[in-house]
């Protein structure tokens, strides 16, 4: 029987219903089969450009600076799906750790489902070359 081949990278989605303009916390355990986070993206047409990622942490370590504007990790549908990730940070080693994101949308009007996409890989250099190519 052929051995199942693991993909070189995976996109893990973390979802939460946004119900107010207050801080919402997203928490999820990252896929333990992957060793590094190399990208982050938000693809949501309802999320306002003034939204803020107050905290993005894994193991208590900051992945992005505090109060990072969500607009920097958002793209329109005109951007190819594999180019929608923001990767200008040091790839962070992970091992099934919990990721914590505190998100705030000061221009919240109605409820929407926020999806944060996290790009995980076992080969950060190769994956980053693809993302930056």
């Amino acid at each position, binding site marked *: 029987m052929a051995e199942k081949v693991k993909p070189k990278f995976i996109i893990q989605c973390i979802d939460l219903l946004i119900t107010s303009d207050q801080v919402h916390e997203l928490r999820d355990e990252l896929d333990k089969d992957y060793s590094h986070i190399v990208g982050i993206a938000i693809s949501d047409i309802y999320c306002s450009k003034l939204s*803020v990622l107050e905290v993005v942490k894994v193991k208590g370590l900051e992945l*992005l*600076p505090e109060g990072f*504007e969500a*607009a920097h990790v958002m*793209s329109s549908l005109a951007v*190819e799906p594999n180019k929608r990730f923001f990767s*200008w940070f040091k790839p962070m080693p992970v091992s099934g750790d919990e990721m914590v994101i505190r998100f705030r949308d000061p221009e919240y009007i109605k409820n929407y489902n926020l999806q944060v996409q996290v790009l995980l890989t076992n080969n950060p250099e190769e994956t980053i070359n693809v993302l930056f190519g």
Partner: protein
Amino acid sequence: MYSLVKIYQGNLKNQNNEAFRFTVKDYKKVCGAFCTGGTYLSLAFDNERDVMLRSFEQREMMDVPPNKRPVFFKRNIEMDIIKGVITKKGTFKPKDVFSVYLIMQK
């Protein structure tokens, strides 16, 4: 591998622009910069002897991949004092927050 460093964050309050300064420690190279969309950014290195950006217009570029939005340049730095001015373009709400980031290498 790159690191992201925030060198300014503020809301400009009642003024149109704000000057800031930042001392670089622990990094050897700066590779690029970006800031809040809808602003102009000026950046000078080596205590204002080397002007890297002069009123660079940072647009809201949702149609551009996030990794391609910064302005890229290579510059060696060591304990450099970076000075800058961020200017808002058009009208903003009082709660708007503006930030400037550098992409650094050790």
